[in-house]
């Protein structure tokens, strides 16, 4: 252990005395405050905060990722190319200890830099409201919709299979089925229509969502929604009546023991809005119902798009959520450190850096990459799905657990979500990413290569 620690501290010293670390440090220290003042978003305080957090976290993440790649590759390749390793590896240290020491050093450095930069970002974020002359309403909005960590109630997907089948049989009886389409196509089409109908409300009609086992976890809860309306009214405004309370009341009008939220609103179509309601409307049995009523002067049916309705509640503080977001960045840094070390056990500095950067950018845009390959695969078929697809699955999917995705809409990034990204597999319904497992495999590969390679042979 002492030798691992000796190598680790030496690696940290090397990185700190390298100009690369210094340059990125200066860059961030200069850029972050500038971003803080120049990011304005949609001119509201919330928009400003969202823009800043999203940009600054992405920037920090990108810089640290590149820095991690460069340092982890450089620290091994320079030892080999400048031959300091001759005097190190001939001391009582095993080769795996040497690599682990380097890894530990890079990770400690990452933790230090990450802590420093995220502290700066956090401080700027927290103090932004006091430096802007935002109105009281904006402050409250920022408090409720940004400086928080909210979880969403699961909107139960309505099962329409039976209705669709019934409708299909009815059409079949009436002999009205379109002749040149297969049964699957017709069923799919009917399902689509049925589901759309479930999310649409004619003028004067209501849409009701029901939730089970709701526990009022915070003082207020939020309905986050987006309208589509056809045809579009001239001013794009949608009038509505929102109700929230005991499901028996909402559905059948039975007088409840708990209060009921009932409020009419006017919102613009096709952007997200939030409606706040008190948590004490949730009945004791936890059966909460929420209703939207399409009221005049609307003249057209209102449709909620697929991701257009959510019920949010405050589950944690902004600070805790921020810390977990930083952890998710650390996850990818650890992965990249393992990747860099693995590459540097058999490649020279420029080649290893190139290799890692390609790996990194592919992982960053993994969604896009998988999608485009998936599109290609329709033509290539089996060859693709048994070769390239497997390889792409080995890449971590950084965009899947992007911290901005959680902090910007003030969405809870829970520890279990983090664990999903770190260790859980993408199959068996976990939808994880196994970043740690993938990093461990890479590291193991690197250790094996390093164990058997000839140290004194310099590969150009």
């Amino acid at each position, binding site marked *: 252990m*002492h*030798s691992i*620690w*000796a*190598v680790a501290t*030496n690696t940290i*010293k*090397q990185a700190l*005395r*390298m100009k690369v670390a210094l340059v990125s440090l200066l860059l961030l220290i200069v850029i972050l405050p500038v971003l803080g003042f120049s990011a304005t978003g949609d001119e509201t305080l919330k928009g400003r905060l969202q823009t800043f957090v999203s940009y600054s976290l992405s920037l920090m993440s990108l810089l640290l990722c590149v820095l991690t790649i460069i340092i982890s590759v450089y620290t091994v390749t320079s030892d080999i190319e*400048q*031959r*300091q*390793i*001759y*005097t*190190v*590896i*001939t*001391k*009582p*240290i*095993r*080769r795996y200890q040497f690599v682990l020491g380097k890894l530990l050093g890079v990770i400690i450095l990452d933790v230090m830099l990450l802590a420093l930069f995220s502290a700066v970002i956090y401080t700027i974020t927290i103090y932004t409201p006091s430096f802007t002359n935002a109105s009281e309403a904006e402050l409250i909005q920022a408090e409720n919709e940004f400086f928080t960590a909210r979880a969403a109630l699961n909107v139960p997907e309505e099962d329409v299979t039976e209705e669709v089948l019934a409708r299909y049989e009815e059409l079949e009886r009436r002999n009205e089925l379109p002749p040149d389409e297969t049964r699957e196509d017709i069923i799919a089409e009917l399902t689509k229509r049925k589901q759309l109908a479930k999310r649409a409300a004619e003028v004067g009609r209501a849409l009701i969502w029901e939730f089970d086992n709701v526990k009022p976890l915070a003082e207020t809860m939020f309905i986050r929604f987006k309208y589509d309306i056809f045809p579009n009214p001239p001013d794009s405004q949608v009038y509505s009546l929102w109700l929230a309370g005991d499901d028996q009341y909402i559905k059948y009008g039975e007088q409840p023991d708990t209060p009921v939220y009932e409020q009419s609103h006017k919102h613009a179509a096709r952007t997200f809005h939030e409606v706040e309601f008190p948590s004490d409307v949730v009945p004791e049995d936890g059966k909460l119902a929420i209703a939207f009523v399409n009221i005049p002067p609307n003249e057209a049916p209102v449709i909620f798009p697929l991701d257009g309705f959510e019920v949010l509640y405050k589950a944690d503080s902004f600070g805790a959520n921020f810390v977990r977001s930083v952890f998710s960045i650390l996850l990818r840094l650890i992965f990249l450190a393992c990747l860099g070390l693995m590459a540097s056990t058999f490649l020279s500095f420029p080649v290893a850096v190139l290799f890692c950067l390609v790996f990194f950018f592919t992982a960053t845009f993994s969604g896009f990459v998988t999608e485009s390959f998936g599109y290609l695969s329709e033509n290539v078929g089996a060859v693709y799905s048994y070769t390239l697809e497997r390889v792409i699955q080995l890449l971590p999917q950084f965009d899947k657990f992007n911290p901005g995705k959680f902090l910007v809409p003030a969405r809870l990034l829970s520890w279990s979500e983090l664990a999903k990204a770190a260790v859980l597999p993408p199959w068996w319904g976990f939808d994880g990413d196994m970043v740690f497992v993938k990093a461990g495999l890479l590291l193991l590969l690197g250790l094996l290569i390093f164990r058997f390679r*000839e*140290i*004194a*042979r310099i590969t150009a």
Partner: protein
Amino acid sequence: MEYAIETFSLTKIFSDWWGRAKVYAVDDLNLQVRSNEVFGFLGPNGSGKTTTLKMLLGLLHPTKGRALILGGDGSDPKINARVGFLPEESYLYRYLNARETLDFYGRLFGLPPKLRKMRIEALLDMVGLKAVANRAVGTFSKGMARRIGLAQALINDPDLLILDEPTTGLDPIGTRQIKDLIIKLAKRGKTILLCSHLLADVEDVCDRIAILYGGRIQSQGQVRDLLQQTNKRQITTDAISDATVAKIEQLVRDENAECVVTSPMDKLETFFIRTVTAAQKKAQPTSGAVSTTKIGDFLTQPPAVENILDKLVAAPISPDLSDRGPLTEDVAADTVSKSRPDEQLLSKLAGSSEPGQPGIAGFQEKVETEAVQTPTPESEQVNKDILQRLTGGPADQNEDGQETDNSQAGSSGDA
């Protein structure tokens, strides 16, 4: 006899990209280096010396054959802990300063902090870099880097020291110091493999040599056997009168032999050291390494101190000594400053007891080292000290003593 280094048909072939054999860097090498000898490994550039060393240390894999050092594998940490290695160039971390460099290597050996600190200071003192200990090693001249390289090879007080061209880039004083050090370490029972093509250095210190060419050993044996001219005799005297010289010449002629009489020349090395020592005494400033003739205390401490203590305790001497704990280095590390007086006391005790006693020789050694550490006013004196130390030292207890004496005579006895 156990060998410190032994190779069996060691072969290294460097092949090209396709795996075709290209160069036989080392070819069927069978090398045996005995424990406690100074072995010179000679050869022109590219003769396979460094490749052999790299295979010994596990930096390269042999194509064929096997290499054992200290009876084990060169990549085994247990073996590495007993080996000191100075590569052909001092490959150092340029961003560390001298003290940090040694600290790093000390920590790789897992030396406890106090012992580490003590050794680092002793080594910095020894290689004359104490004044620049806080300067980044990257700014060092080649010779200064070499000194740090040597210091890192010694920080674990190794049983086997492998030195690849240790004197390249060093000034004559540094060279001389390394040679003195090698002799001292050999006296303490260490084994040294000296790889060089500077023949003068090798000749001065080595017991046995092997000459390598084309990856094969061309010649191997005792330096004395290989170099002694058995058909010549040399007599060195004090300044005697011309009349006596004439008488001697007459005697020689009577035996039908040739005779040449000259005044012996100083070696340039001796003259150089004398000049620089004089300048140092005037305390002229230098930005480089300060040449000293000091050798790290822990390196010159006699081996197995307990044994000597045992003997001292067994001998009828002042009783308070028996109260002292064993003076092993690990214990001494805790009381670095305190151990000094003890040593001096021991030295006195050792000096007063019978000179022929085995084991005490080490302590006399110690006393003389101290004498060198505080240079006597006249530079002549320093030389005499060294000379005396090298040749006139008490009979060595180790079996190679005779050989060591002989090779040392080569360094000073060119008169």
